[in-house]
């Protein structure tokens, strides 16, 4: 645990974060699962559940396949009011480095803009991430989006 972080790797991590954010803000849903490993875990979870170790999550995916199923759901099955989302993500803070695994956290705020409406704060929280290298590229082995927001304004359809 806690090996030194090489500056070049940090630059790569920043790139991963920036690309992820760009993809989910652009609605580039096909790219989204590609940021993850095959056996990844993705969770969107209220802070209360996380802190009290209650396992329920708003979204709880256990594989890249489930992320792809979600993409299909967003496109084809989930009826919803269209909206733009815009993430503002802090610089990631490195919590630990352990033999090719990077543990990080970063704050995020997501704004939602519905057609003809003003922009509002949609979901605020932090990412808790585990990043690994697969065939040379950095991927999320897990990404937990732990949100402070006590109320979801009706529905969250797109990935945070």
């Amino acid at each position, binding site marked *: 645990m806690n090996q030194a972080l090489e500056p070049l790797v940090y630059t790569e991590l920043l790139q991963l974060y920036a690309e992820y954010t760009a993809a989910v803000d652009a609605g580039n849903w096909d790219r989204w699962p590609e940021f993850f490993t095959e056996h990844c875990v993705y969770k969107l979870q209220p802070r209360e559940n996380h802190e*009290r170790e209650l396992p329920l999550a708003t979204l709880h995916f256990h594989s890249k396949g*489930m992320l792809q199923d979600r993409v299909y759901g967003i496109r084809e*099955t989930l*009826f919803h009011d269209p909206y733009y989302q815009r993430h503002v993500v802090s610089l990631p803070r490195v919590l630990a480095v352990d033999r090719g695994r990077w543990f990080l956290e970063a704050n995020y705020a997501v704004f939602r803009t519905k057609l003809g409406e003003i922009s509002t704060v949609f979901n605020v929280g932090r990412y808790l991430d585990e990043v690994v290298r697969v065939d040379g590229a950095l991927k999320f082995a897990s990404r937990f989006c732990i949100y402070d927001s006590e109320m*979801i304004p*009706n529905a969250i359809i797109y990935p945070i």
Partner: protein
Amino acid sequence: MNDAPITLPSSPGWPGDGVHRVPYWVYTDPDTYRRELERFYYAGHWCYIGLEAEIPHPGDFRRSVVGERSVIMVRTQDGGVRVLENVCAHRGAQFCRERQGNRKEFVCPYHQWAYDLEGKLRGIPYRRGIRQDGQLNGGMPADFQMEGRGLTSLKVAVRGGVVFASFDHSLESFEDYLGPTILSYFDRVFDGRKLKILGYNRQRIPGNWKLMQENIKDPYHPGLLHSWFVTFGLWRADSKTSLKMDPHKRHAAMIGVRSVGKPAGDVVSGVTSYKADMSLRDPRQLDIVPEEWWKGPTAVMLTLFPSLIIQQQVNSLSMRHIQPRGPGVFDFVWTHFAFEDDSDEMIQRRLLQANLFGPSGYVSADDGEVIEFSQMGFQEKPDQQCLLEMGGHDSEEATNIASETLIRGMYQYWRRVMGV
């Protein structure tokens, strides 16, 4: 939500005799909403508070609401459950700000009046005055009685680990309130097994609270709005369905048996949400394992008027608490649970199937969305009417999905209590 919409002056009269037309003003009129709170939430009805499993130990408490009023569910020293209004008897401070915790007593921060777990007033600082220059000055009058000055304590019913309460102490028993049919479906889930809390989801839906009751009294929509229901046969036109009610028609059960196999032509013809070639890349999200206690149905959705929906849809279970916040908005709080004797695999299965439900769920996120759209329509034209004629004009029990009988039943009851 941000800007209160301007509601045009309405003429709260009911169109005709029946319940197959519901005027839009029932969802928008502020006076109607006030009266609903008084008549449905604050008198005559049992409201959902929480689960006993949330407060296992003496002194454990968790906040909840009845209508718009904040209450605290407490486990007392003798193991009982109390529900106390979160309003200080002194000057009304909503003293309990934590969501949950453990206390020996409740102390209001403003002037430190102290209450025991039963809600009885136990301490008032300077009650006998302050000694200054050998004299007692101020304090409460000598004849002031602490007795009977505690927190408002609600009438409580606990059944199968589920806690309900009412401000109305003259209310009938919870069992009579549900009636035998609905009670039997309630007991099917809560048969004495210990519950395990899996966690919470919270969403704020910009619609009238009744729309959520109606959504779960509406078997017509799941096979149309929700692709997952149609495509995977969880609930669609060829599913064996029965629609039941209590004698007052305020509560209902939508009971379904999932269809297996491909649907016949007319079940899905013209239904755009049916995706013939859809399959899951990771089928663990629908790894359905029948449980003995289901006793046949694969889904039973209970609507307990006014404040609760109990969901059993295959292996996923939740309590959905309706918390009104004005005529055009309510909070919807989901508590997912399992049973203490569930295997780890079953708990994992319940958690993965929870992806279908909640504010992002494959068959629930869109319910909130369409409720919002309905409310938008209502606000524009309070005098226009919903057309509820699927399955006829009456509100008898039925056995098919093309029926709005449960919603009509609810409005029959609503009209009686509201006097319109």
